[in-house]
């Protein structure tokens, strides 16, 4: 065998090294395959970036849905508990005037709802040909909120309130004004006159659509309760109602309407012309006024109080 000339030529060393590298053993194929098989079995498949983003997006969406759902549930719970709290106070429930059709072309004056003024309610009957024959006040609202929304929108605030869940809240309203008022709008079927085609129809009050069933009759749709606030100066007052400067129609008193004058409990008889009053009226889900608080002051305009106070 010829002796390689390592010392004189680097090419010979390179050749030997290349030969050496070529003769190095090959890796154990079975071991490599086994390793790959184990890796394939033990390692879960990795997700692509798109898949990861999809998963993250889905998780974010789920979290958002949960948060929104929680907010909705809490809001609904608060709205439901609010009327109960209001009724549970010492507010004396009063009865609203008779409900009427929101689309009624001719709105009768509120005083017409008083028992002694029943005959004056005839125009109401003539104005609402489609008034319900049954005592159901379903699609109607109390006249007072209607007036507020039609004539003195700027001075009255309508706050929709969830229906009262407590069934005992509504039946406790037993005002003597209740019975006559209930009868008034039901007369239109007896002598009602159709609305003339040219009669302009005032916009309907923003009463929320009935979504619940009243306690008395499950078949009737229920209206959400509304809390209405009036602010103004008394321009006329008597034992049954008062009139505000910014509200031409009189506002009825209930027999147990709560009156506060200059921070002290008082009575409706102490109300005089010139008093600045803030009236908070709460209607139940049937459109009946269940509470009324009149806060009057002789000097500084009071801050409207919520019905629960």
């Amino acid at each position: 065998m010829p002796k390689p000339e390592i010392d004189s030529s680097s090419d010979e060393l390179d050749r030997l090294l290349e030969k050496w590298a070529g003769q190095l053993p090959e890796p154990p194929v079975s071991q490599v395959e086994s390793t790959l098989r184990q890796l394939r079995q033990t390692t879960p498949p990795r997700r692509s970036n798109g898949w990861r983003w999809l998963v993250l997006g889905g998780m974010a969406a789920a979290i958002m849905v949960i948060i929104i759902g929680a907010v909705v549930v809490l809001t609904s719970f608060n709205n439901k508990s609010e009327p109960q709290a209001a009724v549970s106070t010492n507010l004396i429930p009063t009865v609203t005037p008779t409900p009427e059709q929101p689309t009624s072309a001719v709105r009768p004056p509120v005083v017409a709802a008083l028992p002694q003024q029943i005959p004056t309610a005839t125009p109401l009957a003539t104005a609402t040909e489609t008034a319900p024959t049954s005592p159901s006040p379903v699609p109607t609202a109390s006249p007072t909120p209607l007036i507020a929304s039609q004539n003195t929108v700027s001075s009255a605030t309508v706050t929709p309130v969830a229906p009262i869940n407590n069934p005992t809240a509504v039946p406790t309203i037993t005002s003597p004004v209740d019975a006559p008022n209930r009868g008034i709008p039901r007369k239109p079927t007896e002598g009602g006159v159709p609305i003339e085609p040219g009669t302009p129809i005032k916009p309907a009050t923003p009463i929320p659509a009935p979504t619940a069933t009243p306690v008395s009759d499950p078949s009737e749709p229920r209206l959400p309760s509304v809390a209405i606030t009036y602010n103004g100066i008394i321009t006329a007052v008597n034992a049954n109602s008062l009139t505000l400067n910014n509200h031409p129609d009189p506002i009825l008193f209930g027999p147990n309407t709560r009156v506060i004058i200059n921070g002290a409990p008082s009575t409706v008889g102490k109300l005089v012309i010139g008093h600045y009053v803030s009236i908070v009226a709460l209607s139940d889900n049937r459109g009946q006024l269940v509470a009324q608080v009149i806060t009057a002051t002789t000097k500084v305009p009071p801050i409207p109080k919520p019905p629960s106070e």
Partner: protein
Amino acid sequence: MMSIELADEELAQRAVEGDFNAFEELVRRYSPPLFKFAYSLLDNYDDASDVLQQSLIQLHTALPQRQPAASFKRWAFTIVRNKCLDQLRKRRVPTFNELAHDSGDPELNLVEQVYDPTPLPEELIEQQATQQTLKEAIATLPERYRAVVALRYTSDLSFSEIGQVLAIPEGSAKTYFQRAKTLLRQYLKDRL
């Protein structure tokens, strides 16, 4: 079967995205040079096999964390080299590498000093195996020199890439290679 035309980086990216076939293709492509590199450093078949297996597992595990800009080939050889160093440390046998690093520069003098010329000339003549002598010569090289030589002849890495694998400058890689050849030439000159 994965297309062989795909570049390493494309296969690595697919492997990261969950395509295990892409990883398999990388393994089949680089197992031989990686194993030869490990074997050249360890000079033991079983140890090289263990190192290759551990390296494959680490390649698969650490692939998602790999720098996208880094070359897969260079990264794979780096992992194998580190595994080989771990294996060498386990042996706890003083190597020329350690001795060479304990002193400053003169690897050549150390090789001359430490080398035990036990093989008799008659034995060398009897072996008549130049490759065996070369193998022994390579085994006497310091680890870094041996790594440079192994990388140079078992892979297609450039000196720049070899330097990146060994974490040394490109110039140092070239220097190590020349010194290694000098040592090998000296060794072989005395025995062939």
